[in-house]
């Protein structure tokens, strides 16, 4: 797992997103890269996994929005696959009390969020709102996932593989959120979406209560919910991408 996990979400968004200056939270992670030499005219662009430009990589060009979208979509897909696997593993170790999906009581902590539950809704919703929704979903899982990681470590019976998966998922959600933020900034800077999002992003008050709710869930329910939301995020990202760039392999 790459170690360059920065808490970019907490830091204010850079004024000029296209300049790709790493966020303050990334500084420490970027230290080795800087040590390696930032001599080149290229600014160290390795902003998380989004920007793969290595130091001194002269062939590095600024990524287009489509590229960024492709990456976040792929990333969300990987998260979803991981969570699916982890869910299966957890089900194996903690057999559900009810038959597989059939637990009406199962309630995800994000269920309260109004999210489009079909293609047409997802297409109708404004882009800014959809973007915000994605960010909100990711934000809503950040905290619970780190809690979940700490919690799951106490399960001695769980194989290390599952534990590492959980940890990986947590990290990837961080990265995904940063990536989506990056795309958002880029889209805002290009005028694709309005800047009205900024106000919404800050209002994360509901996040805490949601995460408290999440702590009450069983492990498998938790992962089940996360899996669903990761799929949601991926679907929304795809819809968003194809709405913004319909010509791009959509």
């Amino acid at each position, binding site marked *: 797992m790459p170690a360059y996990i920065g808490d970019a979400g907490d830091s204010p968004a850079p004024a000029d997103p296209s300049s790709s200056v790493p966020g303050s939270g990334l500084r420490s992670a970027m230290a080795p890269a800087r040590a390696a030499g930032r001599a080149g005219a290229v600014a160290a662009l390795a902003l998380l996994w989004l920007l793969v430009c290595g130091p001194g990589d002269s062939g590095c060009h600024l990524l287009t929005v489509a590229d960024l979208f492709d990456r976040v979509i792929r990333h969300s897909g990987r998260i979803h696959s991981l969570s699916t696997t982890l869910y299966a593993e957890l089900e194996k170790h903690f057999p559900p009390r009810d038959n597989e*999906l059939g637990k009406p009581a199962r309630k995800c902590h994000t269920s309260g969020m109004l999210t489009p539950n079909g293609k047409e809704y997802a297409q109708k919703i404004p882009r800014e709102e959809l973007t915000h929704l994605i960010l909100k979903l990711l934000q809503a899982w950040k905290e619970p996932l780190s809690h979940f990681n700490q919690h799951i470590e106490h399960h001695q019976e769980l194989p290390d593989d599952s534990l590492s998966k959980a940890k990986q998922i947590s990290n990837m959600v961080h990265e995904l959120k940063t990536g989506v933020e990056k795309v958002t900034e880029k889209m805002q800077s290009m005028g694709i979406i309005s800047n009205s999002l900024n106000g919404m992003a800050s209002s994360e008050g509901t996040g805490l209560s949601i995460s408290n709710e999440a702590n009450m869930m069983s492990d498998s329910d938790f992962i089940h919910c996360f899996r*669903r939301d990761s799929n949601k995020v991926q679907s929304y990202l795809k819809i968003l991408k194809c709405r913004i760039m319909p010509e791009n392999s*959509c």
Partner: protein
Amino acid sequence: MEAFLPITPCSTARTGNEWCIHILEEKIYECPDYQASGPNSCYFDKNHTNPWTTYIITVMATNEIGSNSSDPQYVDVTSIVQPDAPVNLSLETKTSASITYLWAKWSPPPLAAVSSNSHVYHYELRLKPEEKEEWETISVGLQTHYKVTGLQAGVKYIVQVRCMLDLGEWSEWSSERNIQIPNGESPPEKPTIIKCRSPEKETFTCWWKPGSDGGHHINHTLLYSKEGEEKVYECPDYKTAGPNSCYFDKKHTSFWTIYNITVRATNEMGSNVSDPHYVDVTYIVQPDPPVNITLELKKSVNRKPYLVLTWSPPPLADVRSGWLTLEYELRLKPEEGEEWETIFVGQQTQCKMFSLNPGKRYIVQIHCKPDHHGSWSEWSPEMYIQIPTDFRVKDMVVWIIVGVLSSLICLIMSWTMILKGYRMMAFILPPVPGPKIKGIDKHLLETGKSEELLSALGCHGFPPTSDCDELLIEYLEVEDSEDQQLMPSHDNPSKNMKMIPKETDSDSGRGSCDSPSLLSEKCREPRALPSALQTQDVRAVQENKGAKRSWETQCIASEQEALLFNNESTKSSTWPAVQLLPNNQLPVFAYHSTVEAHTIMLSTTNVNISSVLVGNEEKHQSRYPVAEAVHDNMEKQREMEYSTTEQTTVQVKQNRHNDKSPFLNPKLMDYVEVHKVRQDEEPTVLLKHKDNNGKTEKYTVPGTSKEYTKVSTVVDHNILVLMPDSRIQHTPVSQEPAMETSQNLQQGQAEKNMSYCLTAPSDCKRETSGSEYMDPSSFMPSFK
């Protein structure tokens, strides 16, 4: 060890093939086959099985200490026949006239040996309600089905059958079969939800299987509730997706929600609800197979065929919105092949297949799946593509054509080369030119600087350039005129005249040229020898020299001519002169003359004259073996006097130039005349020679003495060359001999014309030419 081995009863399963142990009359046999029926058994195959006998069977156990036998068992094969149980028992409840009955069907036991006689089995059927212990056994008879009536409705029965051959034992009971006797009064069975599927991630459909109806019409109702909601909805659409299904349109389809679906079957007696089915629509997406699959064979650059597959996503799937992303997988195999080769393509809708076996017919199929969730679609219908074999063949044909064409071209090329080769050769190795005048420079000829040319020819002293030109022309033409020179007309007294000195040499070494009486005789003699012997030699020498000469002439022409001709005009003048003589005779000797002239030239340019001349002389000797005897004598003299001869010749030639100028115009044929002129002229040259021996020879021209006003040269001590035109001093002295010579000349001419040259012109020619060549030298001894 004391072992008791009880013999378990023999069984003859598989009627006709006995699995048992037997004993026959008095004779004791051992078991034929311990293996076939497993451990602790003995199998009697058909050969060892006699149905009309009783077998007494004992088993003996033996170890190191001793043995022990079982009690004998008496076995009658017929009585121990026990078939296997019947198979394929199936039960059905049927209702006719509101009476429900059980219809049981089965099959006779499978025979080990099918070929054996068709056995007739008797069957028995037994049944009991599930919860009871007692069986009710019914004898069926020979048929393999049975109709059981009078059963309790709503009770589950267990049914079994068994069979028996005529005399044997009953088989085991077959495996149990259960059947629920429907109760007309009961509610329907529970339906089962088979599956739910969303073809495009927008709508979905669920299908169920109804339970047994219990004899009444059943109503099915699908009910569902969504996760987190208490409210239960009924299926919005039973019809769209066909019977026993429910179609959820877009409005009723929610994602990331779990549907709790149940189906209720209801009839008049009541209802039964299926087990709940939980559905998350995201994970039940199963698209339709891809469509518009096209297979196309293309040729790559290196002409290898490859297969291009293109397809379209299923029409229902809205991949453009990004809501559904499909991944594709294709598989293919040769038509006769067993294993599919599966290739995951990803999201692209085309694929290129390389490395297909030519000449095979491939089956290709494609299916698709949403990424990260859902399941694979059905495989698309099989597509066939024949990979042609003729790519190779075409290649071969092409190569063959190319090969044939190129070989043809090569043939033509080489042919033309052969044809034109001579010309090519002519370019590369030009034909050896005939005797050439060394001094003539082609450049000079071409540039037309006649004066230089003339000077080169030694004509520079003579104003009439036209003469020189003609001269030139003549020289050149002379080279080609071998044949014409052979004409008898050539054989003029001049030749004879020149023969004379040589023959005189051969005779005595002192023979004078003016003894005409000898002419005819001696002219004949030497001819025979040299003609035969020398021709070859001469030719060989000629060839060598010719080759050399061509080089030498060029070199000299280019390098030396300026020096030679400019500086030593007199010498250069000897050139044409020397050449002129042989030219009249033969080119063969013209070579020699030129060579000689050449050597002379060389010698003049600081080479020792005498030595070179001697060399030349030796060559001449070889050519004239006749003269060899005399040669010794001659050589010294020649060495001594050679320079003189040269000069004399020079003189002669110079004179001739003057004289010949009128005669040079006519060409080959004119040479005859030239000779004649010479004949006439030669006498005009008066050579006074006072020999040691006191011999005096005088040539005088009886008649007109023309332009011989030129200087008469005094050569060496004794030789005086006079060219008097008007000097009458000499004439009287030479009158007598002149008369003689003239007579002799006439005779010689007559003779030569008659016998000599006519008979063998070539010989004559050589002789004469040789003699002529020797002219200057031959004069010498005579002068002595």
